[in-house]
């Protein structure tokens, strides 16, 4: 409708106001705040790059950054790959119980991780959790401390047992979501491609790798990028599993941001937010580049 009317302005006034007041405005101010020292009341003091310079020497920041990156790198690719493989099986004509499986696998996406986290914590808790007991029960001398332990091996100082637990739970939680999205993508693949590959004598694995996988590449890119962005901002699950026993081996960027906020070190909190913002931006730009290449 190209007629002149006030309607679009009326329809958009409230949405634009909300997005401006609660998202765009606060983001710009938040990025600016990273260059100030402020406790939330009284005047803010401009410190330039002071906060960022402090970050470099902050013994808490580096573990938080490292843990966040480890979490992203070790949780996103496995859940995307698991989702792909599950989808290729579930989508096959001979598969029985598709709806049931889809419901079960999607459940962790829907249910509050705060509630499910309690069950996981009970499973993993060193004082009476099922898994540590099972490990001792089958004859091991002692079980790793899944929620508070140190590095899993002396040559892997950057990977602690609690991080492994968080990563496993994240994969558990997101694999079904990836599967459901791959199912949607697979239903759009042209059957004749498979038939052509078969005529050419391709093996099952060959079809999977050379036909299916390339066909769903846009979905893979989407899941990877949204997974990385979500992983960079991870909070709920970390809070649910480790807020009671927080250490340097479990702290993530987002948790550190929140802790600094609670301590009324708002400028510092915002500066860490700036780092998170930069990481998100880089990911988004990579996404745009990948999408453009796919479109070409």
């Amino acid at each position: 409708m190209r007629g002149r009317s006030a309607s679009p302005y009326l329809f958009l006034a409230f949405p634009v106001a909300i997005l401006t007041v609660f998202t765009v405005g606060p983001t710009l101010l938040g990025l600016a705040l990273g260059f100030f020292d402020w406790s939330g009341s009284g005047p803010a003091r401009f410190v330039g790059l002071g906060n960022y310079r402090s970050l470099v020497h902050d013994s808490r920041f580096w573990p938080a950054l490292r843990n966040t990156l480890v979490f992203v790198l070790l949780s996103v690719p496995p859940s995307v790959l698991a989702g792909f493989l599950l989808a290729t099986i579930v989508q096959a004509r001979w598969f029985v119980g598709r709806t049931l499986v889809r419901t079960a696998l999607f459940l962790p996406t829907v249910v509050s991780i705060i509630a499910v986290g309690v069950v996981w914590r009970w499973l993993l808790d060193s004082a009476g959790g099922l898994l540590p007991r099972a490990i001792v029960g089958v004859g091991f001398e002692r079980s790793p401390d899944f929620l508070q332990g140190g590095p899993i091996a002396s040559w892997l100082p950057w990977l602690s047992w609690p991080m492994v637990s968080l990563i496993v739970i994240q994969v558990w939680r997101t694999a079904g979501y990836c599967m459901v999205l791959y199912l949607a993508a697979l239903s759009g693949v042209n059957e004749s491609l498979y038939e052509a590959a078969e005529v050419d004598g391709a093996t099952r694995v060959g079809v999977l790798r050379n036909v299916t996988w390339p066909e769903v590449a846009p979905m893979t890119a989407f899941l990877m990028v949204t997974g990385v962005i979500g992983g960079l901002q991870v909070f709920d699950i970390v809070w649910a599993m480790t807020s009671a026993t927080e250490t340097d081996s479990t702290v993530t960027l987002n948790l550190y941001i929140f802790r600094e906020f609670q301590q009324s070190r708002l400028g510092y909190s915002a500066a860490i937010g700036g780092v998170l913002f930069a990481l998100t931006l880089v990911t988004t730009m990579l996404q745009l580049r990948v999408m453009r290449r796919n479109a070409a």
Partner: protein
Amino acid sequence: MSSRAPSIVTRLAAHALVYAVAASMLLPFLWMVSTALKTDLQALPREAAGESVTFLPPGWPWEWRWGNFADAARAVSLWDFYQNSLVAAALTTLVAGVHNALAGFALAKFRFRGQRAVFWLVMSTMMLPVQVSFIFAYIAAGRLGMVDNIQALVVPFAVSGFGIYSMKQAIATVPDSLLEAGRLDGMSDLELFWHVVRPIAWPTIAALGIFTFVASWNSFFWPLVVVDSVHSKTLPLAVAELSAGRYVQSWPVRMAAMTILTLPLIVVFVIFQRAFVRGVAMAAVKE
């Protein structure tokens, strides 16, 4: 997908694998519910109860203690938290449903000055992390009198970039000729929205609504920032404290509370799962 069906062994192995994964998704929930029905002693590992260690499976409740649910509801003012979560999620869904759709309509079917700017504003909000914006969003909410109340959980989510974008994509498929015909019949833009756009875009509106409801129901970070007092706490906040043993010590009673929190959402999901899954998939495939 392949016209050659694989051998029976392969098929069986594939089923076993997928069912095992599906079971792993269900077990924590089953365990939660079964523990919620146990006595304190039953819920403890047997070793602590003076017997040898038997750890798996989590075990069937021998005598079903439905009383745990009553205990949970009594110990934790669950009903209040429930009400807060329900009101916040329902209001958010309703308000966001209307405004996302209207904004999507404006962007999809009108030409107006500043359109590109608005579109990019909407798009940009999809990639702005809340961890950067929450400090001033909190301050803004405070200035508007929205701290520690239900409005604070609703108004900031009254629209979303993702919602507006999805609605714009859906409404773009409404044929212009239908809108022109409505125009000739003398419909106002709002009437066009209600009588022409809404019915056609309904699947997207519904899917987005379910999506919004679940996101609001489960939201944790923002409520943690903006809610202080007991009277406006939502269920996830209460559950986080509950799990830390703030209200009750008994594990079965805690699990009963978790069950009360999650079960309604599971039921809603199972009922609406088609729409839900389609909504999620639709949003991604369009990307």
